[in-house]
């Protein structure tokens, strides 16, 4: 709260850590702001779905078309659905969804909370007896944490549709066969870590967006700065988390889960 604009990366990290502890504390301790949480879930999940759907569809289609020539060279065209499904479920689905959410939701939260901070609404809320951490931050963080995995499931499913269409552009494959081929290489150690990863992405987007909004300084330009840095930091955080989760995934693979 004392660092204006978050110019110092070390103070940023320590501030974010303290903020995260406070958020987790409020998430675990009642009372819960259920109505606000549902409203945020609607805004974050449902309203992001069209964007995610378009992106995922195109991603599945393009990825399939781009991967196809090299598999054809190997005479392994039949492996195309499996390859696409593994890359989408493991990596591309969660990461692309999280990045889009970081852009849309993270910036939204940062701008919203930043403007509330700039216009001193948060201070007013505190005065009126509502805990802004609980009402504003905890609900948003919970909403992003819960909605992002669901968005990822949608993204995976829709990109499968895109992939199916792309495969059918060149060859003729039934939906049943496509699904069999697509699920053939998938294991639980593909889906479970990806889902866990999605929760962490959602949590990170919410926390970073809220933190950046909460940290906004004074003046209207602070709002833009808060929104901007929320997207940047959230995107970087997504990649860092992704890198860490790969290790988790790998160890799960070794355990043959």
């Amino acid at each position, binding site marked *: 709260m004392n660092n204006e604009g978050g110019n110092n990366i070390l103070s940023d990290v320590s501030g974010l850590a303290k903020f995260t502890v406070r958020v987790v504390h409020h998430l675990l301790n009642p009372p819960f702001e259920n109505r606000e949480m549902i409203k945020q879930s609607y805004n974050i999940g449902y309203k992001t779905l069209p964007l995610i759907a378009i992106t995922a569809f195109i991603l599945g289609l393009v990825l399939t078309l781009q991967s196809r020539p090299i598999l054809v060279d190997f005479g392994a065209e039949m492996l195309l659905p499996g390859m696409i499904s593994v890359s989408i479920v493991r990596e591309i689905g969660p990461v692309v969804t999280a990045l889009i959410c970081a852009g849309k939701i993270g910036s939204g939260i940062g701008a919203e909370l930043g403007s509330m901070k700039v216009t001193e609404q948060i201070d007013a809320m505190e005065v009126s007896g509502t805990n802004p951490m609980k009402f504003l931050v905890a609900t948003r963080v919970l909403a992003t944490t819960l909605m992002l995995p669901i968005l990822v499931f949608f993204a995976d499913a829709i990109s499968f549709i895109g992939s199916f269409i792309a495969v059918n552009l060149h060859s003729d494959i039934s939906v049943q066969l496509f699904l069999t081929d697509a699920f053939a290489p998938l294991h639980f150690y593909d*889906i479970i870590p990806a889902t866990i990863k999605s929760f962490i992405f959602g949590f990170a987007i919410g926390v970073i967006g809220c933190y950046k909004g909460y940290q906004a300084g004074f003046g209207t330009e602070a709002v833009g700065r808060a929104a901007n840095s929320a997207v940047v930091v959230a995107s970087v955080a997504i990649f860092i988390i992704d890198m860490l989760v790969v290790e988790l995934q790998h160890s799960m693979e070794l355990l043959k889960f």
Partner: protein
Amino acid sequence: MRMTIQKSIRLGVFIIVGIAIFAYAIYIIGKQRNLFGNTFTVSGIFKDVSGLKVGSNVRYSGINVGTVSTIKLVNDTLVRVQATLENKVHPFIREDSRMEIGTEGVMGNKVVNITPGSSTQPVVDEGDVLGTIEAVKIDEILEQLERSSINTTRVTKNLAEITSKINQGEGIFGKLFTDTSFTNNLDEISRNTAQLTRNFSTISGNINKEEGVIGKLLSDTTLANEFDQSGHNLLESTRELKKITEKINQGGGLFGKMFTDTAFTRSLGNSAKNLEYTTRQAKTISENLANITQQMESGRGVINKLLTDSVFSDSLDGTLKNINRSAKELDQAAETLRKNWFIRTFSSKKQEQEQPEGEEAENQQENRGPENQEK
């Protein structure tokens, strides 16, 4: 802050559909990994699982019916592979079914194939150990391929050396292909061989046609008879001669006395010597004959003439006839002498009269001997 019912419903549908997608994925994967539904386990013991992994597919008649659930080392050489199979294939897996480690495609994942057993065997129980068939290892195949390719290299190298030698005209084949004089010699040899065989064929043809001495010898019965006759006559005359000499030795009669003196004995000795000479000559003849036959056997040049020259055989024939005739004449002369001359002169001593006549006959024969040889 205002939440309409519509928004709540939309959010609910969104969440439910999202979770349904997740549940579907989990179910599909779980179904593939046999987490749900009834399963049973069988195991097999392998020496080498060649990269089989937990979770690898198990196939029965080419259908995926389960997965490998555990791979455990039993001891230092044996690996126990346990497979979890769907219950629906349980009735088909018999106690003499076999587990085998195969590959999906050429370079694909390892799979366990379970071969169908015979229908007379009982169905396996939960946890039974099936017999196994050791997998064909790609490594071994490659190793064998390598070995055979080394051999092939060697063979082709040798072939290359041989052909280059042939090209350079080394060795018999090289000469064959490049050296024209060698070929010419070969040509000549074969031509001579052809000639030789032709000659042989002519000879045998002549023999069959009773031409030449051998032909006559082999086929002319009269000639053989003549030989027989002359031999017989010779025997006869020698017998006569023997009788005469016996009488002389006994020294009976006037002539007996006359001829028992030393001068007579000396001349008789001479004639014996002559006889010896004759037999020696005869021996030489037979030796020569032996030589001739030997030469015939070894196929030397002269034989051709001998075999084909009918003039010679005719003359031989004539000779034999002459021998025959002279022997007969000798016989006749001896007879005549005994009957006429000696009877006339020494009618009282018939036995002693024969002596000079015998001498004469002897001389006659001696004269004929060398004559024969000359021929």
